[in-house]
């Protein structure tokens, strides 16, 4: 795998979407998420010698977990570079995709809206929420990763949850009005 351009290209093609979905939860701008994914893949290919490929069926799971970790760390690095400042402007509609199957479409729209809610949180709340709720990090790990205290991590999570509940409530009210 090391230095094998063809394999790298296949791997990139296969996991690009997965990586982009991780980075996009953390980074507000789609373009930044794309940059973070590129950086993440460069890191992965440069350090691929650390990944031991065996015949184990769990290899893919291990690879995906590693890829997820690299993408999360790279996204946080990109956030740090922008000093965790909130970004203005909405998320353009063109970045979202919709399935052809109309039965699933509503469900996907809901999921997309939920992710948009997370992205609209302040960067510090968004990062803690993503890390704890979605990516399964503990408060101690978050504190270490973000260089904050465990208490700050817990309070950020609490605040994020409150804000998201309010957003869900607003969304439900809008939906009720339409009906």
């Amino acid at each position: 795998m090391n230095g094998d351009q063809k394999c790298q290209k296949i791997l990139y093609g296969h996991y690009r979407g997965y990586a982009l979905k991780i980075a996009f939860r953390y980074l507000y701008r789609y373009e930044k998420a794309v940059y973070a994914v590129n950086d993440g893949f460069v890191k992965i290919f440069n350090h691929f010698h650390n990944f031991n490929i065996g015949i184990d069926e769990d290899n893919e799971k291990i690879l995906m977990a590693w890829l997820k970790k690299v993408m999360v760390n790279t996204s946080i690095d990109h956030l740090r570079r922008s000093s965790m400042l909130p970004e203005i402007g909405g998320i353009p509609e063109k970045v979202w995709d919709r399935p052809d199957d109309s039965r699933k479409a509503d469900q996907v729209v809901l999921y997309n809206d939920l992710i948009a809610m997370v992205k609209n949180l302040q960067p510090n709340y968004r990062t803690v929420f993503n890390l704890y709720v979605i990516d399964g990090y503990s408060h101690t790990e978050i504190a270490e990763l973000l260089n904050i205290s465990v208490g700050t991590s817990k309070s950020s999570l609490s605040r994020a949850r409150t804000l998201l509940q309010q957003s869900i409530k607003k969304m439900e009210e809008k939906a009720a009005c339409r009906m």
Partner: protein
Amino acid sequence: MQDVGENMDQLFRNAAENYMLKEGDSNWNEIFSQLQTSSPVVPGKQNQKRKYIITGFLLFICFMAGSILIYHASRNSVPVVAKTKTKTTDKSGKSIFSGKTESQKDSDAFEEENKSVTKNLSKNFKPYLVGNGNSYTLVSPGTTNLSTTHITKTETTNNPASLQQIKTALKNEQIPPSIIRLYSLQKDSTRHISPVRINTKKKHGIYYGLLAGTGFTTVRSQDFSKPGFDLGVIAGYHFTPKLSAEISLLYSNRFYYSDGKYFKMDKMVDSMPSDMKVMSLIGNSKIFEIPVKFKYDFVQTKSSSVYVATGISSYVLINEKNDYVISMNGTAGTMNGTYKKTTGYFAGAINISAGYEHSVGKSNTIRFEPYITIPTKGIGIGSLPVTTSGIHILFTRSTRK
């Protein structure tokens, strides 16, 4: 309430897993370009880098430790008897030296009368003579027997090889060698000793020499490519024993790496497609460097010194060869460029160095000089601000002996 929170978390987990995002165009070319520029971090290369850093650090520690040792050695250098003494004469015509015992006065009187003996007496660990100007007694130092051998003034003054005479006399007296113990002026509290630092070798006039060295060149503290080398000649002039001015002419071969963002396209914009972008480059430059600097010896001992030097370096670039990784229309590729146009850069860098100098023979010295050149302007086709650090070894020869 906890259930609500738990349900909400699960909802967001599902959303994160199933939300749909357009992947857009493949960025493989960009990733490939980055992979070309950022060489894989393989353990071997990491170890090599670490080795360079550790070696550099150890060299620095050795240099600092050496400087401190030399500094302390120079402060605690062996004292010798002060040569400036006030001589007076008493009524009886005997020579009197102030602040000394009678025997020492006589000894010093002998020194005055017989220079060759004085020279020997002034050294440590030697037998010494006492007397009244006409007759002298050789004292075997460290013993209580003071009257072992008598040498008359006439004998000593007329015979230039008086030390030999003393030795012969000692032999004739058959004094056992164990008795003729060496006498240390430092340990004799009865003698007045003025601590005088050993005179350092005086440096005057012009000196010249050869130098060779190696160093790493970096652009804005990025990764380095491989070590380069310097070969050259040096000439200098001592204004004072401590301060000197130097000029050198070096032929340098430098290797460097740079990210494309530090490479200015201004000079090659006419010869390149407009949408071409340099992602990174690995370069090699052959230059003549002319450093002019001032050197100050802040620690000097008899045979060595520790110094600092600073000045400016001008360059004449004679050949530049760059291997580029470029991006054009979203496609990555490689390109080579060789530039043979000779270009001069006056005061292109500030040169700072410190070093250790050791005398070899009467007029030769060898110097070990770690250095750094800090750029004041960019050089080459891409106006790259290159910083070079390394070590020079210099062999110099003074014209004045």
